[in-house]
């Protein structure tokens, strides 16, 4: 592990505790000076370069590879193929647990999707390996591929998302629709979207006998370690993974995929360290993506605009060889108080890589459809979209009837609308113009994301010099874990952040759980909090049990840890420093472990979600159809905000992704071949700076005593939800054209003149 030299200097003078302070990133200086070591920045001595050759077809088999031509190329050391590769200890097709997904590790010549790895060329230089891969000139037996939402026979999968029921209902939807005064029945489509984290997936793998050293970005150090251990048949303690920084994860680096396994295999094959980094276009296949959906929403309302029924059905796709189903319809479980709700899914299989988690999986896709439908119904009722949402505000979780652990959504609506100026919105569409004659539209969406908790462990220590240590194998994907978790650690041990050595990002540290589900700060934070409390308790035992201490007899409950000292709760003038306690006791350090985990009793009792309200303004050229978002306001309530600066960035990022969902992102798939035709950052559009308007984020105060000890709900994903629908609804309000297929395209808005 390189010396990280994280900086703790705050941008502002701080008062009070560390939690709640807008510290700048402690790894920021490293990053902007190029000193933050990402996986692909490692070059161990003797390292070779590996480049994958990928399938040019989406279904069939490879019948020949010109391995001889590749090997003749100067610098090529070896070519790994299904016939020439190290044996894995277990078949990668075997799903040893629900978080194992099937991968391509050259186990056969079968091609299951385009861009599937079919060989790996290992060479002295990147250029030689790249040309070697081109020289393989694969020939294929091509079989007809299944492409798109109407491919093959549909079926009802056993579960969607991570173990969610495929269908859930409460109340009688058909009766609710039958009794409705007004009904809408609308179908929305969302496209396949692919991960485009700045840092492509990469690995540097080095074997030393049966010990393995790995540099790779991972959102789940221990999950990755366990998967490597079982695939290569080695003990956990023989593997060391370093993942100090991820250049974005977003769900694509959570579970071990094929490419890093190929890197480890290649290193084993040649007996030298190997680096394998995916090219941008190679990310469009083996590392997960957001599946396309077609969603049908049926809503009914009574004469006063109250929902009588909400039926949300989603069609999605999975791969031909594994199961992941985007739980899009589940977005309708929590937001609107319909007495009858049904959510259901079906799917078809297509020749793609297996779709997987992509920032707000299910919530993002479902939200844009639900928020569009709610907007359509508000218009059908002649009601303001915010008034309609308030009319249907859920005081308890609609699908379960449970009370919310906390829900400051009303404040989000109120503060967001006030900041945006929503009250001045015209009810009718296509009424507003700016000085230049551009159509102006205002739209809104409600944001929601579950407040999840996973399992984590942390180790805390207080050292002889009075400083602290906090160790947890946490993951910084760019969201700011090095900073926010260190803030929690500092408060947990009663020290200034500069006095706590915070260690994270390697597999030899305690398991921090997976950095996903917007739950990492809550989960790792809870473990840190509990480890800190435990080590302080041990320190207190040393002092209160020692008659030479001014704290003798104070008892555990009577001591406060603050600024490196323990003081009596009933008399704060009596106390001593951590260093004094340890020196007298003659111990080098005290240490303790703590865990973070969901509280099943609280989960049984309460529905736990973060909420928000997003307001967007778009401008549309009335004749040419080009759209530009001109401002967005998001108000979010997500429990305790550990670091307002990091949280604001997370919410900005989510809102921008929501804008992207509505207007830009789409993997264009050739309907005949199943190949993705825009697998590059030039043509797979994400917003550029000029597309991103001034963004305004409000974090609404919310105290949640039930979600976890720190009251943290998480902000990683909620920003997309609500935002995508808000932009789409604003386009409708600007133009009067309701586009139900995303992203919204220019041709849809070329209305007759």
């Amino acid at each position: 592990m390189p010396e990280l030299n994280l900086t703790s200097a705050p941008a502002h003078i701080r008062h009070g505790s560390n939690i709640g302070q807008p510290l700048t990133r402690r790894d920021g200086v490293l990053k902007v000076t190029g000193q933050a070591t990402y996986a692909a920045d490692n070059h161990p001595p003797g390292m070779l370069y590996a480049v994958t050759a990928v399938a040019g077809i989406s279904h069939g088999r490879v019948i020949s590879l010109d391995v001889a031509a590749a090997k003749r190329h100067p610098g090529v050391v070896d070519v790994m193929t299904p016939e020439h590769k190290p044996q894995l200890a277990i078949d990668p097709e075997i799903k040893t647990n629900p978080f194992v997904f099937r991968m391509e590790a050259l186990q056969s010549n079968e091609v299951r999707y385009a861009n599937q790895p079919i060989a790996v060329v290992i060479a002295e230089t990147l250029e030689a390996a790249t040309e070697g891969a081109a020289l393989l000139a694969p020939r294929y037996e091509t079989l007809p591929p299944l492409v798109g939402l109407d491919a093959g026979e549909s079926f009802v999968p056993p579960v969607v998302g991570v173990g969610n029921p495929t269908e859930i209902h409460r109340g009688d939807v058909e009766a609710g629709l039958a009794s409705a005064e007004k009904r809408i029945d609308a179908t929305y489509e969302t496209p396949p979207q692919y991960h485009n984290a700045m840092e492509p997936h990469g690995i540097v793998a080095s074997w030393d006998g049966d010990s393995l050293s790995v540099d790779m970005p991972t959102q789940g150090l221990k999950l990755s370690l366990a998967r490597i251990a079982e695939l290569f048949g080695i003990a956990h303690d023989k593997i060391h993974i370093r993942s100090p920084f991820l250049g974005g994860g977003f769900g694509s680096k959570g579970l071990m995929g094929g490419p890093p396994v190929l890197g480890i295999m290649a290193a084993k094959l040649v007996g030298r360290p190997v680096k394998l980094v995916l090219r941008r276009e190679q990310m469009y296949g083996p590392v997960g993506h957001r599946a396309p959906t077609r969603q049908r929403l049926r809503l009914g309302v009574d004469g006063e605009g109250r929902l009588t029924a909400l039926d949300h059905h989603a069609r999605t796709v999975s791969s031909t060889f594994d199961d992941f189903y985007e739980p899009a319809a589940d977005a309708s479980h929590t937001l609107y108080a319909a007495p009858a709700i049904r959510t259901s899914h079906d799917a078809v299989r297509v020749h793609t890589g297996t779709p997987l988690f992509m920032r707000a999986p299910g919530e993002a896709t479902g939200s844009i459809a639900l928020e569009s439908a709610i907007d359509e119904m508000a218009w059908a009722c002649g009601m303001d979209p915010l008034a309609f949402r308030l009319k249907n505000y859920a005081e308890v979780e609609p699908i379960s009837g449970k009370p919310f652990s906390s829900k400051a959504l009303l404040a989000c609506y109120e503060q967001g609308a006030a900041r945006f100026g929503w009250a001045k919105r015209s009810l009718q569409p296509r009424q507003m113009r700016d000085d230049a004659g551009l159509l102006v539209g205002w739209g809104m969406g409600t944001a929601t994301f579950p407040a999840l908790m996973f399992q984590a462990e942390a180790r805390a220590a207080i050292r002889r010099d009075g400083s602290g240590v906090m160790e947890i194998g946490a993951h910084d994907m760019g969201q700011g874990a090095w900073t926010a978790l260190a803030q929690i650690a500092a408060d947990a041990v009663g020290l200034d952040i500069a006095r706590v050595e915070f260690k994270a990002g390697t597999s030899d540290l305690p398991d921090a759980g997976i950095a996903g589900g917007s739950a990492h700060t809550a989960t790792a934070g809870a473990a840190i909090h509990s480890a800190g409390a435990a080590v302080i308790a041990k320190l207190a035992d040393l002092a209160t049990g020692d008659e030479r201490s001014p704290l003798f007899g104070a008892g555990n409950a009577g001591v406060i840890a603050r600024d490196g000292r323990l003081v009596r709760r009933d008399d704060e003038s009596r106390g001593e420093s951590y260093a004094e306690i340890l020196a007298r006791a003659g111990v080098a350090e005290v240490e303790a472990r703590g865990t973070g985990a969901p509280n099943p009793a609280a989960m049984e009792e309460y529905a736990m979600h973060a909420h928000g309200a997003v307001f967007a303004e778009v401008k549309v050229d009335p004749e040419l159809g080009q759209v530009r978002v001109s401002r967005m306001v998001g108000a979010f309530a997500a429990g305790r905000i550990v670091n307002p600066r990091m949280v604001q960035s997370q919410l900005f990022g989510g809102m921008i992704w929501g804008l992207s969902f509505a207007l830009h992102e789409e993997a264009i798939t050739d309907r005949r071949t199943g190949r993705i035709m825009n697998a590059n950052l030039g043509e797979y559009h994400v917003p550029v700076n000029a597309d991103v308007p001034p963004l305004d984020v409000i974090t609404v105060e919310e105290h949640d005593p039930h979600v976890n000890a720190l009251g943290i709900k998480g902000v990683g994903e909620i920003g997309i939800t609500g935002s995508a629908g808000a932009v789409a609804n604003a386009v409708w309000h600007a133009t009067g054209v309701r586009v139900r297929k995303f992203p919204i395209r220019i041709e849809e808005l070329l209305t007759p003149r």
Partner: protein
Amino acid sequence: MKPFEYIRPATVAEAVAAAAQPGAAYLAAGTNLLDLMKGGVSRPDRLVDVTHLDGLDAIETLADGSLRIGALVSNADLAHDPAFAKSYPAVAEALLSGASAQLRNAATVGGNLLQRTRCAYFYDTASRCNKREAGSGCDASEGENRTHAVLGWSENCIATHPSDFCVPLVALDAMVEIEGRGGHREIALDELHRLPGDTPARESVLEPGDLIVAVRLPPAAHAFAAHARYLKVRERTSYAFAVVSAAAALRIENGKIAEARLALGGVAAKPWRARAAEDVLRGVAPAADVFQEAARRALTDAKPSGDNAFKIELARRIVVRALTLAAAGTPARMPALPASPFASTTGAIHA
């Protein structure tokens, strides 16, 4: 990447000789070529680097009043040259609407003219493409082709030329100066690019070894400076190729259009000069109905090559808007979002 020979010639004559060999390609900034090489789309045996040649990076006014732009002038340097931007505002606007600031800093005038199509099937070596491999077929014609050509395409190729820069240039009768094995010659830019016909792999009239050394704007070109605009509709606000674009330039005398120039981008395998539309505009007062008629004329021969019928209607509307903007007069300052429909948005952020 395929190994290649790298040659850095000292003179234009050496460059021409080196590049006349089969398998050779000129390298200027490489903003397109290097991507094509990394993707295995272009696999030259020899690169002839012209970036160190003397005398190709000047912007000079000639005695007859024409402007000569060296082939190695960067897109950014040209667009930000105050005298150039004042005399040929639509060209500057087109340059600034293309690519990104970083690419414009590198990309050259000559390279811009010879950039390759952005057809996805051309870039995808697993697809058939008559441009990449003559006679292999065109997978775009039945494929994902909503952004493809609506003018001048053939059954063999429906790709478009992606340049913004070329569109106002062709409208202003730009000339291209070429050094080749037969010495110096010059042709109209309008004649540089070929329509696909039966030989889409032959994209220009250049012969092996031919090197573009300059682009020249004739003396008449700056007479349009007061009424010249470029308008580009694209699918994000910056860093995207045109779905359709248009350059419109008017010479207005006594309230009437003495002369009009109009060209379209993103619609054909070459920048598309719309002379029939120009004829409609000559001698009439600028007005919405004549602009509509000009737009109709400009697209008379258009037909969809796939899922792109909307581009024809969009092109008509862009023509009308570009003419309307040109008639209103060139703005005193370059808009913050050059060529964008949102150019006039107050408080716009620079692209």
